Structures are given as C-alpha cells and as structure tokens.
C-alpha cells in the first residue's frame, strides 16, 4: 500500500507552506509582544505577505504544474491572481492599522493572524484542482472572516452581521457541497481536470450533472454575492467593522473569480450552454437590484455593498460570453475581460473603503454619506482621490473602471448578445447617479464636521497612490489587460 508513495513536489506550493509557517510563528511570537500597539506582529504579517510575493515570483513558471496528487495546480493564472491577493492584503493591513489601534476589542495579534489565514484560504482556492481543495480553501477563508467580523464583540451590529454571515455562509457551503457530490456521482471523480476529460468523452448522465450544476452555481452565487443570493452582503458590509469590510470586499473577490473559473470553465466547459444561461439571469438581476437599491442608501458602506452586487453581476457578464453556440473562439477575450474587471474592482473598492478608514477615528466611523459633506473644504487632495474612485466605479472614461466595463461590453457584443450589452449600459448609467451623489456631497455641500483629518502619513501616501493608480492605469490599461490575457492563454 505504501510502496508506490512518492513525496509530493513541494516547490509549486512553496508560498502556501511559507505563509502557513509564518502565520503559526506569528501566532506564537505575538504571545511575547508586550507592546500594546502590536507593531512587531503587524510588521511580521506584512513581511510574510511580501515574502510570499517574492517566493511566488521566483517559483513561477510558464508551465502548468500539478502536485499533491493533482490536488494543487500552479499555473500563470494562479501566480498572477495570488500576487494581486498579496498586494491587496498588504494594502488592506496598512489601511486598517489605524482603525484597529483605535478600537480596543480589535487591537489584538489575532487580527493579523486571522487575516493571514484568510489569505492562505484564498491561495488554496486559487490553486485548487480538486473539489475537496476548493471546499477546504473556502472554509478556511470563511471561518477566518466570520471570526474577524465578530471581533468587535461588544458591538451589537457586528455580532449580528457575523451571525448572519455564518449561517448563510454555512447554507451556501452546503449547497456547493451538494452540487459537488452530484457531479461526483455523475462523473466518478473529484478532480477538475478529470471531470473535464470525462465530460468530453461523453457517457455521463446529463440529468444528474445539470442537477448538480444548479446547486454548484447557487453556492458560487452565494459566495460571489449576486442576486438572488445577495441578502447577506448589505448587512455584513454594514455591520462588520470597516477594516474587516474592506478585507471582505476586496481580496476574496479574486479568489471567488478563481474558483468560478476553475469549476465552470476548467471543469464544466462542455456544460457551458447550461451554466451560461443561469449566469445571465443572475447577472442581469444583480445589475438591476444592486444599482437600484444602492440609490436608496444613506450609509456609504451599505451603498458600496449594493455597488459590489452590481459589479459582480457585471463581471459575470464576461464569464457568460465565453462560448457562443459551441464556438469558443472568443473565450480567451471574454474571460480575460472578466479577470481584468475583478482586478480593477478590487483596486477601486480598496480605495473606497480606505477613504472611510482614513476619515474614521476613535469613536467615529465616518460611514454615512453625510460624513463626506464638504470634504473638499477640509482636504481638497483627499476629496480629489475620492472623486477619482467614484468616477472610476461609475465607469467615467479614462479611469480604470471605464476600461473594465468597456472590455466586458466588448466581449458581450462580440458574442452577439447586443440586448445584454444594452441592459448593462442602462444599469451602469442608473448606477452613476449614486456615485456622483458622493461627489456632489463632497464638493457642493457645507461640511458638518470641520475637524482636520488625523490619519498617519503612511496611510495618506498609500491611499493617494491607490487613487493615482486608478487614474494612471486608466490611461494605460494595456499592461494589466495583456497580463490577464497572457495568464489565461497559458492556463486554459
């Protein structure tokens, strides 16, 4: 039984192993930290992420490599997405630093350790080539996030949000698992590449497969937060401490995109007809409900939550247009536009929540729209940064958000579904209203709160860089766009 056992090749999974080791080490080192600001823990967590990025770059190869008996896959798409995850997490930890320091319940070493374990979960999801690994990665990410949402335990809103997130997250995991078990029943394997092969060979019961697919798509939709599985998003975004909302709203979207690609495109591409139809319904509903409901919000975090729903709907459009009546000619273009959209969205959403964190201070959350009134008079530069973020989210030309929307629309039009493109444009126009309202509040209303901004210098520099990146990458989007196209070309 043990005769044919070979030690798995650990090199492709080196960043995961490094991060797991560092997280465990930081957990122990943090016990000895006397400093109430937890500077050492913070610095070590950042170093762990930077170390991961360096290892990732040095171990990356053009080839697709499998290890751990095909449970783990390392391809260019995984490398690229993981590097974006590390960058996002570094930014997230910097942004949340001041907020966490001001709140005693969250100012603990565990905050950073849980963030690292969440990162590990995302990395496992991105590199998964087996249903078991996808599920385990998802649970690792979710469990860390549930705990982080509840960390501000004396706040009723946070505990309620954590409870809702936990119960609905468990339900979604159940759906996903049920769908996976049905697909396992139909194909007889859990390995994604083998599922694709068996489906290609035919001789698979289609009824069971579609049955499993419905549950699989529902589970994924829950995790992505698209209508009609979006109910948890506004409550969790609103109730969670802003630093955790920033984390939930940014990097996990990259991981969710990765598992959608692995499961639907990597494993079930022969079923594209079925899941594309499902995704189109989810996508149109998300754009409609997300954009319309966002108009009615007075809380910025809630508004951004509905905006997240509509953005995820828009991103799904890119995934739905890969295969047109059995012809996969446009697939590369469509999927790379969706990937570019996710990366652009993460950049923008990090900036938007970063602005809320910048304005917040001890005992003041700055998460109402009214808190942004007259920001231009208090700090013209940061009003300008927020203006760029909002314009980019609305899709105003020559910001990165515009090119993200543009490339997805291009893919939709290329697939011949003109009506879908028109629907998407109409809802984007409706959505522009609430983004521009923030701009109006900042520039044309009198401030209700005259106190100067107190954020530390590093935070100011980083958020300025974030805003400038949105503008500069909007003028030169080709760099990231060609990276996405190259990654998918090498991975699919």
């Amino acid at each position, binding site marked *: 039984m*043990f005769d044919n056992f070979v030690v798995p090749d650990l090199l492709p999974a080196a960043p995961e192993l490094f991060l797991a080791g560092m997280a465990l080490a930081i957990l122990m080192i943090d016990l000895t930290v006397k400093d109430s600001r937890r500077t050492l823990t913070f610095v070590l967590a950042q170093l762990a992420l930077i170390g991961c990025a360096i290892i990732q770059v040095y171990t990356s190869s053009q080839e697709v490599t499998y290890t751990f008996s095909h*449970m783990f896959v390392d391809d260019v798409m995984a490398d690229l997405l993981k590097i974006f995850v590390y960058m996002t997490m570094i930014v997230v930890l910097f942004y949340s630093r001041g907020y966490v320091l001001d709140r005693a319940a969250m100012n603990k070493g565990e905050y950073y350790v849980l963030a690292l374990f969440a990162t590990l979960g995302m990395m496992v999801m991105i590199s998964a080539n087996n249903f078991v690994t996808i599920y385990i990665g998802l649970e*690792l990410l979710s*469990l860390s996030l*549930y*705990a982080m949402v509840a960390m501000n335990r004396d706040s009723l809103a946070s505990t309620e949000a954590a409870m809702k997130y936990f119960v609905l997250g468990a339900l979604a995991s159940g759906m996903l698992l049920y769908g996976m078990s049905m697909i396992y029943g139909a194909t007889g394997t859990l390995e994604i590449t083998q599922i694709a092969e068996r489906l290609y060979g035919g001789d698979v019961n289609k*009824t069971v497969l579609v049955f499993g697919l419905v549950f699989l798509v529902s589970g994924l939709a829950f995790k992505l937060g698209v209508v009609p599985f979006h109910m948890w998003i506004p409550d969790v975004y609103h109730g969670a401490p802003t630093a955790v909302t920033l984390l939930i709203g940014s990097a996990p979207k990259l991981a969710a995109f990765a598992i959608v690609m692995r499961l639907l495109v990597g494993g079930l591409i022969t079923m594209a007809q079925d899941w594309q139809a499902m995704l189109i319904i989810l996508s149109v509903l998300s754009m409609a409900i997300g954009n319309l409901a966002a108009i009615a919000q007075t809380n910025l975090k809630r508004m951004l939550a509905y905006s997240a729903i509509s953005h995820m709907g828009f991103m799904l459009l890119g995934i739905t247009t890969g295969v047109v009546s059995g012809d996969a000619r446009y697939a590369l273009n469509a999927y790379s536009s969706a990937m570019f959209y996710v990366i652009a969205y993460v950049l923008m959403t990090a900036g938007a929540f970063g602005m809320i964190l910048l304005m917040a201070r001890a005992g003041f959350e700055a998460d109402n729209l009214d808190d942004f009134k007259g920001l231009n008079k208090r700090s013209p530069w940061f009003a300008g940064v927020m203006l760029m973020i909002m314009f980019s989210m609305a899709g105003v030309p020559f910001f990165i958000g515009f090119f993200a929307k543009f490339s997805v629309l291009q893919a939709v039009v290329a697939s011949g579904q003109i009506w879908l493109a028109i629907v998407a444009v109409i809802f984007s126009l409706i959505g522009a209203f609430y983004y521009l309202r923030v701009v109006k509040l900042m520039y044309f209303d009198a401030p209700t709160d005259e106190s100067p901004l107190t954020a530390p210098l590093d935070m100011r520099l980083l958020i300025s860089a974030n805003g400038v990146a949105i503008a500069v990458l909007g003028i030169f989007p080709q760099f990231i766009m060609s990276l996405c196209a190259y990654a998918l070309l090498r991975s699919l």
Partner: protein
Amino acid sequence: MDFQTAVFFFLSAILIFAAMRVITARNPVHAALHLILAFFTCGGIWALLQAEFLAIAIILVYVGAVMVLFLFVVMMLDINLDRMRQGFWNYLPLGAVLGVLMVMEMGLVLGSKYFQVPAADAMVPAGVSNTKEIGALMFSEYVYPFELASIILLVGMIAAIVLTYRGPKKSKNTNPNQQVFVQAKDRIRVLQMPVEKD
C-alpha cells in the same frame, strides 16, 4: 427482500423519524437526544456498507464528544423555543412551496434508474481493512487537504479564544488614574420621582 435490505429500511425509517423530531421537538434537550439517535442509525447504515471505521468514528466523535458537549450547552442556556418560533406561520407558505418543489425535483432525479448502484459494486472484498485504507489515503493522496483541515480547526480555536477571552483577572486592585477622573455623574444617579405624601 433479503435481510440486509430489511435492516437498511428499518434503520432509514428510524433515521428519518429522528431527524424530523430534531426540528419538531418542543424541548431542545429532546431535539439533541434525537440527533444522537440519528447519528447512531447513520453509524448503523455505514456499518451495513462495511465502512466500519466511519461507523465507529461517527459514534465516538459525534455522539461521544460533540453531542455530549452540545447537551450541556443546551441545558445551561435554557433556550426559549416559543420566542424563536415567532413568525413561523408567516414564512410557512413560501417555505412550504419551495420545499415541495425541491423534494419533487430531487425525487425525480434521485429516483431515476441512474442512481441504482448494483449491489455487488458496493461490497468490499474480504481481507481489506478500510481503516488501513483510509489511513493510507489520508497521509498520501489526501495529505494536502488533510493538513489544511487541521489549520481550519486551529482557526476555529483561535476564533473561539478571541471571541470569548476577556483578559486575566489577577487581582482586584483599582486603577488610581480612573479614580482621579471620576465625576459625580458616574457615581450618583438623580431620579425624578413624584412626591409622596404620607
């Protein structure tokens, strides 16, 4: 119907009854006890499939450890189920429609002949120990998810400590800093009361 099939149907009937009682029992302790019964019958069904390791594991882990702890918690918390059931009748129609639809759809698919596995396939040849098999697989083919699962358990532990631990209480000394800054309104509460005439 041979003996094994009869035992299977017998155990399944108990399992379904127990599972129904878990969600319908008025007394939470009864619900927990029925869950234990459900785990026992699950173990029985696994034993019937010659998966003796899983059968023993579910009884040792779930019945022996998890459910005992759970019973303690339920007994200590004294949950008022009637308050939790408020709004049940409002949600019933929508829930019932969805539930019936789900059951019909699942029945249609699961009842199809595709799901009838020939009995011979499920039988384990003599001399194979599935405890050994599971052990070998866990540490060879499935070592990656297995180790990650241990990290998930660790995260659960960290989360439990973070959410409940409120720092050591070593001594009952007072904080002079807070004492100096105390104000009258922290100590004295002025109540407005109607004048009582005696």
